[in-house]
């Protein structure tokens, strides 16, 4: 029975390593089960090649078009998000986190006090879900230029969040974990489910992003 190292040597030889001539020698040397390993490798590659090609989902293509538009507009005087020389930038909240109701930037921010600020007078600290529900019930829309849909899209993308998938329903200034932000309650297209996202006033980062309801 060929050992793990022997298996790897055969697999590498089958891939032409360390060079074609040496690989040919290994394969011709006739280790006890070279033929069995080569058959297994061939079957594995056949399985891999049979994995179907997927098409870019229309929803993703649509979100991209929206994002390109927002960048083009440079809405509300915004500028494109900074990108470093290597092309990498901070990883935004993940889909899992965004879509499944977890918080990223302000870890466990749902458990952190959220103070509603500005008129009407400041309310006692509460959690973000409650704040979102309250702002939504009051239909408050004290969000400045972010009431403009292109400005909203631009702000969220610039802050590293995903673009909205529904209209702005309500919003107001908040203080989250001691940092000023703007609570935005946005429709998701799913009945009873809204997104509560809190960018900083300058849209340079996201303080919280979670799904409420559902």
């Amino acid at each position, binding site marked *: *029975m060929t050992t793990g190292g022997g*298996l*790897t040597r*055969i*697999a*590498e030889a*089958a*891939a*032409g*390593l*360390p060079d074609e001539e040496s690989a040919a020698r290994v394969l011709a040397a006739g280790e006890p089960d070279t033929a*069995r*390993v080569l*058959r*297994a*490798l061939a*079957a*594995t*590659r056949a*399985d*891999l*090649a*049979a*994995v*179907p*090609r*997927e*098409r*870019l*989902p229309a*929803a*993703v*293509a649509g*979100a*991209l*078009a929206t*994002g*390109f538009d927002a*960048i*083009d507009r440079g809405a509300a005087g915004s500028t*494109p*998000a900074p*990108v470093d020389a290597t*092309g*990498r*930038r901070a*990883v*935004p909240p*993940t*889909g*899992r986190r*965004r*879509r499944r109701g977890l918080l990223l930037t302000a870890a466990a921010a749902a458990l952190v006090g959220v103070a509603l600020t500005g008129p009407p007078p400041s309310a006692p600290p509460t959690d973000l879900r409650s704040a979102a529900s309250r702002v939504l019930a009051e239909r408050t829309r004290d969000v400045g230029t972010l009431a403009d849909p292109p400005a909203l899209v631009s702000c969220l*993308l610039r802050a590293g969040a*995903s673009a909205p998938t529904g209209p702005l329903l309500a919003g107001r200034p908040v203080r989250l974990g001691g940092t000023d932000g703007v609570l935005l309650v946005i429709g998701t297209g799913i009945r009873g489910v809204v997104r509560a996202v809190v960018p900083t006033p300058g849209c340079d980062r996201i303080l919280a992003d979670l799904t409420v309801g559902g």
Partner: protein
Amino acid sequence: MPLLDARSDRALLAAFRAGERQAFDELVRRHGDRLWSVALRVLRDPDDAADVVQDALLSAYRRAAGYRGEAEVSTWLHRIVVNRCIDRIRHERARPHVTLGRRHHLLHAAGDPAERTTTRLAVVDALGHLPVEQRLAVVLVDVEGYPVAEAAAILEVPVGTVKSRCARGRIRLAALLGHLREQA
């Protein structure tokens, strides 16, 4: 029905840089499916893949002016997606792996469509058990069919490194998928 754009990728990117927005849309049409497939097969989660592809292409859109032409446009776009995938996997390393279940014993009972579907699911799950470097190499070369040299350009590693990662990934997959065990 839009006419096919016969311009090369480089010509399209140059046109985009000169102010023709539709030229970038055409690049997305040409390469979007493949970029999506790579992200989906590497990350194995459609939500994660959606985030990565959007983030990567928005980034490419913003920094197209910085494209220096040293790599093919396709390679450049794939490189951005792959780097985003690597970032994502490293941030989510705490996520539990999918456990390979009994369905892997069905792999050689090929024939009807349901069993072929089971086989594909098993392969996609098994890919998740590879270290990220091996997974990327195997996805690019064996799943997506890129030449080794192009995969090396995307991953920014020597050709020999891609071959080695593929070889080690394949032998591990062969064991996971039961090809070695069942022939022993």
